[in-house]
């Protein structure tokens, strides 16, 4: 689905592609920094202590979430400056791409990158022999991974919109809400492999974020109805 999003909405416009790649880059940098921190922490601690390692991992995850949001903010700042430049350069005094579009594309960029990093090794392994979880792990590993990744990608997209909107209108609570949501989703993934605990809340949160973002972008229940009834 994320690929479909990409193809239909972004690939047409070269500017959006660039924003997308830059968004992916920012996510990557945040991941890099967070893994650096984690690595240092691991090296500095006892490798045989299992619960400690797990605790460190959790700490790494939280830290990474915070870093991701921080980088989203930085990216927002950069895009703000870019919009000013674009407005200055353009003919009729208004930017060819609005901040909302940028928010959307940036969100997709983040999402794609995080999804890719989560899934791609899995996919490569999936080409191998079909033995999933024969050591007693869950047999649904691949499926749940796929769903979780998809929900994360969508969530990143929506969070992008919400986040930028919050920054634009200085609604701090929106920004805080995004961060909290992200933390919640990551934390819920700690319940794995009890998949109920992680997938369901994530999807619920995604629905919430989706409607919120939709409303923020100017949609309304009427629009949905008209769309569904094929513009009657």
């Amino acid at each position: 689905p994320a690929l479909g999003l990409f193809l239909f909405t972004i690939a047409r416009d070269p500017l959006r592609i660039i924003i997308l790649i830059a968004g992916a880059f920012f996510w990557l940098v945040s991941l890099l920094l967070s893994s650096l921190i984690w690595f240092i922490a691991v090296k500095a601690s006892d490798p045989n202590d299992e619960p400690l390692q797990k605790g460190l991992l959790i700490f790494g995850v939280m830290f990474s979430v915070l870093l991701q949001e921080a980088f989203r903010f930085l990216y927002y700042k950069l895009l703000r400056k870019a919009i000013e430049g674009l407005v200055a350069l353009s003919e009729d005094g208004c930017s060819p791409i609005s901040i909302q579009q940028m928010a959307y594309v940036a969100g997709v960029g983040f999402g794609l990158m995080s999804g890719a990093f989560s899934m791609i090794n899995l996919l490569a392994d999936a080409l191998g022999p079909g033995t999933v979880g024969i050591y007693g792990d869950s047999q649904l590993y691949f499926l749940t991974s796929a769903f979780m990744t998809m929900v994360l990608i969508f969530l990143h997209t929506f969070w992008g919109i919400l986040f930028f909107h919050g920054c634009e209108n200085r609604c701090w609570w929106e920004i805080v809400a995004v961060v909290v949501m992200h933390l919640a989703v990551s934390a819920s993934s700690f319940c794995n492999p009890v998949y109920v605990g992680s997938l369901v809340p994530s999807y619920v949160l995604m629905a919430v974020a989706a409607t919120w973002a939709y409303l923020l972008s100017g949609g309304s229940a009427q629009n949905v109805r008209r769309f569904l009834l094929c513009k009657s």
Partner: protein
Amino acid sequence: MTELSAHLPQFQHGQLTENFPDNHLSNTNDNSERRRHDNSERRRNDNPESETNGQPQNNIQQVVEQDDEEDEELTLKYGAKHVIMLFVPVTLCMVVVVATIKSVSFYTRKDGQLIYTPFTEETETVGQRALNSILNAAIMISVIIVMTILLVVLYKYRCYKVIHGWLIISSLLLLFFFSFIYLGEVFKTYNVAMDYITLALMIWNFGVVGMICIHWKGPLRLQQAYLIMISALMALVFIKYLPEWTAWLILAVISVYDLVAVLCPKGPLRMLVETAQERNETLFPALIYSSTMVWLVNMAEEDPEAQRKASKNSTYDKQGSPPQNDDAEADDGGFSQEWQQQRDSRIGPIESTPESRAAVQALPSNSQTSEDPEERGVKLGLGDFIFYSVLVGKASATASGDWNTTLACFVAILIGLCLTLLLLAIFKKALPALPISITFGLVFYFATDNLVQPFMDQLAFHQFYI
């Protein structure tokens, strides 16, 4: 060295007054302070981050400008379109290389080394290995420097025949011999039976069409496709025959060399560029990838161009965004000035002539200015393609993080390319395309491989999500 070259239409003589609207260079900065333009001018955005797509320019008319105004207004905007026009081939080349590396094991087997890298890396101690790789890299770089200087000297003394012959021989070798090996390995991997006659026919066709396309005239897309293919082949050769540490060292040193050779006043590539500029000559089509233009080997006359241009000016109307490849072919007549570019091509195990890559920048001729500015593309040297692909290919071949690392390097290189284009539009002269991208790529490769990979492994193991 390969350079990202942009057309700088404004560096033309005074005749081009009418064509001015086509030649606007604009500062691509977010806050473009030097932007002066009339309402009717066409503009192009150059800043990748703050660029418009081609759409808003539909309504711009061409205007006639004074010469001095033109000089002052030199701002070429690189549309986001141009960046994409370069993203696509670079991506394609990298995809081909990665796909081959992943599937055909031939290119990851150690079958020996080139004679340019005589020191082996299978040594007992780490120190010795490091020493050997440094020596290897030093030898390789000195070979490249020697070849570059040789090429510059040949160019300066107008031994064009020699250069042409050299290029033709190396592209012949590449097109026939290397693709033969490549096809053979692919067939072996997929266990496809193929007789020699069919194979000979295919290779012959492929090679001949390639020679025609690259050195003479041909459809733009086909030429681009061939250039991508030979870059990929070259990169595969490098990946196979360069040992580990040597390869990374060479990548690092080459980007430094690129930087030095293009920007220093005494650098060989810069001298090449300036000589080419003085002589108003075309560059060798075999060494450069161009996003929109097809060029003739010989330069066209200027007068007919001027007339053609004059007639065009009166009725010129800017079109929308679709690339004018067809127009480009018709209009091609002539870059008045082009910077030469040399491709760094090492021809595999057989000793051949490695050439250094020179910075190339193409300045469109007067006639170019009458064309739709969107037709003017950017030029990227083939050596850039090759080294980007080498980086990504090595990352996919030898990284423990596998696809993650490959993806990270890929994004890093693309971002480096964006930044280089940005700088190009700001500085408006030939720039080395390697250093920024390769630096990013190397940093990301080593960082991802050593830092991110264990982290992601642990996360995937526990199925945590960040």
